[in-house]
């Protein structure tokens, strides 16, 4: 089950090597994204998730907000 993480936890995990992934549409990523994040829009997760992400490392996903 995916675990929720807050801002401080995110920073700690990214420093420790977690992969940070924005799942919003690519054009939103181009405008603004969290430092070090990669773009993997939700509709591309199925086809590309296993190619662009390392299953041996933690992954943190985010979008715009909780909605």
């Amino acid at each position: 089950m995916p675990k929720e993480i807050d801002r401080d936890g995110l920073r700690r995990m990214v420093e420790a090597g977690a992969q940070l992934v924005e799942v919003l549409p690519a054009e939103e990523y181009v405008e603004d994204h969290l430092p070090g994040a990669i773009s993997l829009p939700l509709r591309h997760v199925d086809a590309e998730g296993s190619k662009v992400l390392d299953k041996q490392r933690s992954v943190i996903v985010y979008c715009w907000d909780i909605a």
Partner: protein
Amino acid sequence: MSPRAAWRLESLGFSEVYDYTVGKLDWLAAGLATEGTNANRPRAGGLARKDVPTCGLEERLSVVRDRVRNQGWEAAVVINDERIVFGLLRAKELAGNGDQLISQAMRPGPSTFRPYVLAEEMAHSMVDHKLESSPITISDGRLVGLLLQKDVVEAVRKSA
């Protein structure tokens, strides 16, 4: 959107998946740096005056007025010890009866804006609503600074 992505990644064999549920909005609202084409555009947080005078609810208006004017200001933000914004003193409020407490003299509950709002949007909003100044706060209500309309209009003019 992110919960679905997190669950899908887990189903694809990723065992350690986390969801930053409050997302980019939380990050931006905290005034933290981003990357991307908007990263270097002027925003409310960067333009806000961090040296704006502040005061507490229980201070006397005459005392605050002297302090504010000695610092060359005609505005002050009313905050508590945690820098949570309670009110605003603009020129009109500062000119009131000096015997009043700040809690009586202030304009309570002023509209605040988040640090990530782009200067263009802020300029339009402040001009349209005739706001000379607006407190900029992060998501928990803490003061970042006071944004002056003249500063944001000038920033937009320079970046045009």
